């Protein structure tokens, strides 16, 4: 079984709700796409290319004084539930974890993790470097990521063109290769039905939104990932600054919406929050979607100071540990086991009861 204890924080440091605006913004993550000269891109890569690249990357990582020993997980050596576990912790993309149907990761597919930074190897690009931070903290996430990128770039020759910038497998990522995203909880805008306008506005200012698990994922529990759409023609600082400005505005709209909700329909909101809490506290069986939606309601309640004594950190923990692979791994059951619904309800009850006592 995968040993996540190798990571001091289980790869979940970004979850601890210590960052700015942590009640609304769960986490900030930034990724940089990089390719290494001398290796074909993933589209043309054969297994020896992938393995050769991984060796180069591991050698480089071992030679980086500031990052010490990065913990490496070879996805081609992991079971499906273990790969999904890494994906549920947002350490690897769905594509890298090869979670589609019966697909298997290709040889050489790996992730290296060290505190708030990680490197996915042999993804759509050779390297996808990522930096994570708790709350709304673009600068913090970028600082640790940039340090990693700069050290790696001294040891591995990145593919770079003076006009087009960093060269990527898909031209949509060329230039900076930077995609920054903020995982934000917007129940106020959803309940006041303002969300459509806000999301439409985002696309007009060059941003895009996705669901909880990034590209191609559904929006669940009113969580949205807001990120930059373009990567070329603006500097890294400009891209981050632009996203930051817009996210601050979205947070403001969300707060206004919550204000309106509470002023015009306090009793309804309060009822909704406590019903969600009651179900979570006492239910004996919960699907993932149901748990996510109820947690969204309770999170709104915590934001409005309606639920005393419940911390945002506990809510974040519930969000991660009630996911299918986490429960399956903990209960030593296969992912599709119907028993998981019971395990989920019992995990939620246990955490909420501990917090209430």
């Amino acid at each position, binding site marked *: 079984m995968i040993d996540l204890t190798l990571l001091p924080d289980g790869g979940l440091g970004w979850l601890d709700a210590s960052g700015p605006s942590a009640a609304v913004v769960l986490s900030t993550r930034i990724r940089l796409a990089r390719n290494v000269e001398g290796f074909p891109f993933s589209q043309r890569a054969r297994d020896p290319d992938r393995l050769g690249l991984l060796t180069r990357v591991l050698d480089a990582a071992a030679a980086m004084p500031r990052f010490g020993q990065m913990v490496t997980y070879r996805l081609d050596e992991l079971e499906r539930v273990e790969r999904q576990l890494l994906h549920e912790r947002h350490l690897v993309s769905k594509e890298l974890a090869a979670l589609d149907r019966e697909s298997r990761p290709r040889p050489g597919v790996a992730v290296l993790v060290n505190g708030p930074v990680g490197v996915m190897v042999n993804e759509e690009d050779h390297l996808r470097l990522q930096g994570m931070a708790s709350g709304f903290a673009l600068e913090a996430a970028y600082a640790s990521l940039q340090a990693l990128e700069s050290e790696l770039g001294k040891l591995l020759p990145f593919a770079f063109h003076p006009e087009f*910038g960093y060269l990527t497998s898909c031209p949509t990522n060329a230039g900076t290769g930077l995609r920054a995203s903020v995982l934000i909880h917007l129940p106020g805008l959803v309940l006041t039905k303002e969300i459509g306008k806000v999301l439409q506005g985002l696309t007009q200012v060059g941003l895009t939104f996705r669901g909880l698990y990034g590209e191609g994922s559904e929006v669940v529990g009113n969580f949205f990932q807001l990120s930059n759409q373009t990567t070329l*023609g603006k500097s890294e600082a400009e891209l981050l600054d632009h996203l930051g400005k817009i996210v601050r505005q979205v947070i403001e709209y969300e707060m206004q919406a919550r204000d309106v909700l509470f002023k015009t329909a306090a009793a309804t909101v309060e009822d909704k929050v406590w019903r969600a809490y009651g179900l979570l506290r006492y239910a004996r069986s919960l699907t993932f979607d149901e748990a996510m939606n109820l947690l969204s309601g309770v999170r709104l309640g915590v934001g409005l100071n309606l639920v005393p004594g419940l911390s945002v950190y506990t809510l974040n923990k519930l969000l991660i540990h009630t996911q299918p692979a986490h429960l399956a791994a903990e209960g030593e059951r296969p992912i599709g086991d119907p028993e998981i619904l019971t395990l989920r309800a019992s995990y939620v009850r246990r955490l909420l009861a501990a917090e209430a006592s």
Partner: protein
Amino acid sequence: MLCDNCKERDAVIHLTQVEHDTKVTLHLCESCARAKGVETGATLLKSPLGSFLSAMGKGGSSVLPVPSDGLRCGVCGSTLRDFRESGRLGCAACYLAFEDHLRDLLRRLHGSSQHVGQRYRPPAAGGGDADPRSHLLELRDQLRRAIESENFELAADLRDRIRVLE
């Protein structure tokens, strides 16, 4: 632009609908459009990015393969046609082999083809700094190509950098 529905593939169909007196524009990829029952005629094409590329190259009308499809990257052997079909390039050298096509595409995708972010110098083989003379030669070569392709913005930038080195 990515498809509004799946957020995965490039949008090729731009559908304007009126719902409750509000105009809504949906940007969809070929398969999501088909799933929503939108008749596109684009099904003749092999890929969304492919149709996008061939449409932009030929004044938005022709969907027939253009002669430059046969362009081939000397390093990895990918052709421009491969790229049009998969939306993925074969290696870093493809950016040089298909430079003109990619410049147009990057402008469409990002509004610019000129990287203004962090500059990068790869580590020199052997550990020392790269020979500045080879760097100068490379810049001059780039300048020549920039002028040929009438990319004067880049040419001016390169000229300035060459002056500093000289």
